[in-house]
């Protein structure tokens, strides 16, 4: 049986169709509506990019009150794999499911470019098929992508192997601390990153490196035959 992915749609989400396509390339995929306290027994939850709730107050701050997020939190607490991309990463940070916060880019500009990501851990379901040190080429597009944690917490992230990806040397597009592009929770089942693997799943668009995160998750969740 193939792995079932659920992609959450909030008011203001805009990357859910690309995320669905990426998931459908490696398993079954369906949309989850933010207003339903139901994640339909999926095996993997993806919180895609966009501008949930218009980015009002702070990016990601309001989406955590959507009924679906209570179910996502329970799923995450039970060890279920959750991937937050861009605004999804911001939502997971504001929800307390991931450490840190995303601040406006140092340039104050909306960044839209391909970046090289260097894998920093293989211990999450989404990076289980990616070796530490491997480089993935994936687009980044955001205005609030500057990852921040206080220094003491940064040391904890390093000690606990919670850094997922770093921008390759000289490619940090937003001023993120320690060139961090993505992190995971301590258990490793909840991950978030600013660049968009779901936009890099078709050779026609320049890179299929992003597919590896979805493929890794599908393989990690597959029930042995």
């Amino acid at each position, binding site marked *: 049986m193939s792995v079932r992915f659920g992609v959450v749609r909030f008011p203001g989400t805009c990357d859910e169709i690309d995320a669905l396509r990426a998931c459908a390339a490696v398993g079954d995929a369906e949309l989850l509506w933010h207003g339903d306290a139901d994640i339909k027994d999926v095996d993997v939850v993806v919180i895609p990019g966009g501008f949930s709730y218009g980015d009002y*107050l702070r990016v990601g*701050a309001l989406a955590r009150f959507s009924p679906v997020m209570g179910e996502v939190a329970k799923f995450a607490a039970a060890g279920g794999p959750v991937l937050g991309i861009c605004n999804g990463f911001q939502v997971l940070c504001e929800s307390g499911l991931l450490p840190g*916060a995303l*601040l*406006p*880019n140092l340039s*104050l500009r909306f960044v839209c470019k391909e970046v090289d990501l260097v894998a920093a851990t293989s211990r999450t379901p989404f990076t289980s098929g990616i070796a530490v040190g491997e480089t993935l080429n994936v687009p980044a597009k955001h205005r609030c992508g500057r990852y*921040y944690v*206080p220094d003491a917490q940064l040391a904890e992230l390093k000690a606990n192997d919670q850094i997922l990806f770093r921008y390759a040397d000289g490619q940090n597009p937003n*001023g993120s601390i320690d060139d961090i592009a993505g992190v995971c929770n301590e258990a490793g089942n909840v991950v978030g990153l600013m660049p968009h693997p779901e936009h890099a799943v078709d050779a026609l668009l320049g890179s299929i490196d992003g597919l590896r995160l979805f493929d890794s998750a599908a393989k990690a969740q597959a029930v042995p035959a």
Partner: protein
Amino acid sequence: MARARVLIRPKTGILDPQGEAVERALPALGFGGATDVRIGRLVELEVDDAAHLDQMCARLLANPLIEDYEIELLDSVASAA
């Protein structure tokens, strides 16, 4: 009912590129000598119970990881009832 004003600021040590951009723009208008420009948010609200304000700030109005907040109680509003 109480009327309150909450001032939310980027924490000391957090780079504020908005503040820096404004600081660089002021001399263009002929205003030299403005430094340490920091940009935050102002939230005005009326609350039934002012004792809730601190938790409102800590849990939603501000993100304590990156922002400091300051609650100012303005006055009590006569009940409309």
